[in-house]
């Protein structure tokens, strides 16, 4: 049983500008999976004009357009210490795409402009020559950060970005990319202590119920089983679509290589 007195507070950071790709769904999924276990949860939207308070349990950042990412970068600088303090004192951060990039040291945009990140993660991102668009399949990295339950099964998502992210020495990716691009060098995202960064939309926690539970357990501890057969069916269906696309791409690349 999950003995938890207080309501889970899920912060959706800058939904008006980091909300272009449906990533607000991650907040909804965390709240719902908590509620289905009798844990009260509320979603708190934090707009870019407001400071981020450090008292929440989750901070979720999503993907956005270029102009939006500039504004998000400036606003995050002002709330940098609050966010880092929240994370150091037990809060979970889940960041996707543009929001993920801003957790690193910097993001160099396609027009050459340099956005300063908050440096929570030792990594830098540059805009690549091409946009990576399509299904992604990731094998989660084994890591003590997953907790006693261990890594989740294969992760599925949809990427749509031009970023190429270089992780610093010793920084662990979320996993190894089996299909798709991710960070652009074999891995995708970042897995830290109570920290998940990724390029995957879908939203990623809607498509990956076990991953969603790992993230939830980072705050509430071990979770009781619930009937999530529907969510698991979606996960399996997305994985088979992702693998089929992977095989198709592999075949196309082979044909191209042959000339």
């Amino acid at each position, binding site marked *: 049983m999950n003995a938890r007195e207080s309501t889970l507070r899920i912060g959706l950071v800058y939904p*008006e*500008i980091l909300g272009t*790709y*449906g990533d607000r769904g991650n907040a909804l999924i965390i709240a*719902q999976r908590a509620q289905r276990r009798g844990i009260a949860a509320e979603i708190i939207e934090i707009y870019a004009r407001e400071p981020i308070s450090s008292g929440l349990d989750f901070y979720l950042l999503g993907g956005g357009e270029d102009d939006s990412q500039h*504004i998000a970068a400036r606003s995050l600088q002002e709330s940098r210490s609050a966010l880092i303090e929240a994370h150091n004192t037990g809060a979970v951060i889940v960041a996707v795409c543009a929001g993920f990039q801003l957790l690193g040291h910097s993001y160099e945009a396609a027009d050459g402009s340099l956005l300063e990140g908050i440096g929570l993660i030792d990594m830098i991102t540059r805009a690549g020559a091409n946009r990576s668009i399509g*299904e992604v399949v990731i094998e989660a990295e084994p890591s003590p950060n997953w907790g006693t339950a261990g890594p989740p099964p294969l992760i599925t998502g*949809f990427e749509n970005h031009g970023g190429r992210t270089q992780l610093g020495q010793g920084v662990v990716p979320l996993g190894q990319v089996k299909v798709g691009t991710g960070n652009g060098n074999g891995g995708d995202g970042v897995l830290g202590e109570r920290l998940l960064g990724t390029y995957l939309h879908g939203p990623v926690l809607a498509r990956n119920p076990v991953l969603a539970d790992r993230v939830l357990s980072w705050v509430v501890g071990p979770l009781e089983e619930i009937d999530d057969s*529907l969510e698991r069916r*979606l996960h399996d269906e997305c994985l088979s679509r992702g693998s089929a696309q992977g095989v198709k791409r592999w075949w196309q690349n082979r044909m191209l290589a042959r000339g």
Partner: protein
Amino acid sequence: MTSLRTRVAISSGRMAGAVSRLTGRGQGATISGRVMNAIAPNLLRDSAQSQKVIIVSSTNGKTTTTRLLVDALAESDFPIITNATGANLASGIAPVLAGAKRTGLAILEVDERVVSKVIDPLNPVLLVLGNLSRDQLDRYGEVHAVSAAWRKLFLAKPSLAVIANSSDPNIVWAASPGTVTWVALGRSWREDANTCPSCGRLLEWTNDSYDCPIDNGGCGFTQPEAVAHLKFSEDKNESATLLIQETSHELRLALPGKWNLANAALAVVAANSFGVTPKQAIALMAAVTNVAGRNMKLPLGDGRNAQVLLAKNPAGWTEVLQYLSPRSTQVVVAVNARVADGKDTSWLYDVPYQLLRGHSVAAAGERCLDVAVRLNAEDLNPIIDSDPIAAARRLKGDDITIVASYTQFSALYDKYRKSKP
């Protein structure tokens, strides 16, 4: 007259498009355009020469606005040609123009991405621009890019006449260098207009208007003064008042929802510029009940009919859900994720499906599991069936609405046409 070269170009282009679709390489529009262009490079230009072209473009509502404008102008003296089937790429427009027998008006719906490519050859007398919002982000890219591309057209040709929606910042940014008649349509979807299209700062919204105040470090970009204003009535959005200068006109349609009243308002102002009075235009448009299947009554095969609506993206869905929410209808949400729908279904989480609480719902389409998980996240507990008609038959009652994404909708429209004697 249609030359042999034109006919060969069109049929070869169509064939190349069909081959592209059949082999799964693409949708066929690009290749068919290229083939046509290779055989008859001036096809569009030559065939458009004898016509006064009106281009209608928008993320949502272009097919309906085009149709309403065609009907509004039906009793004028101009012979009219139009791409009524929604074939809105260069390859779809060319055959319509080439088939014209007389000089007249060509009222053409044009895909947002294609406007820049066809504007020179078509040399339009008028553009009608409705709204821009996120749609098929995997294929089309982000909204600001479309707005910026349109703006370039007007910067290059400031004399270009345009009737445009002043309530949409992305439309205003695009059209303002042109010769504009602004129509204030109001707007319920703002999620793609939170930043200033001019300087990139956060835009300030108050009720229905917006600006980027200079005293706050902004650039002064603001909502322009409109010559026509649309005000919705409170009676479940079934009617509206269109105020043109000092005169108000009551707008009532057979087509449902606020979004169609907005489409109609643009069409009234556009028709007015060709000498049709608002009163005449409104009367003619009121008779339209079904536009290329939108709002069709589809037999379910069990004695009941379902109303079928198209919704392709979060802005369109938001309008449709606001319309359905106060009504006692059961709802099928039918979504595919083919190329023409956008392959990423993440956008389902940008749609306020919580508006369906209290309705019985079903998740349908090739992506019915994505839909079901989304609806479940709002505790809606849907029936799940990939076939939208089978899903509708499992819902109780006589009032059933199927809301379908683009390719699902097209399949249902094919069924509807076959069901008609």
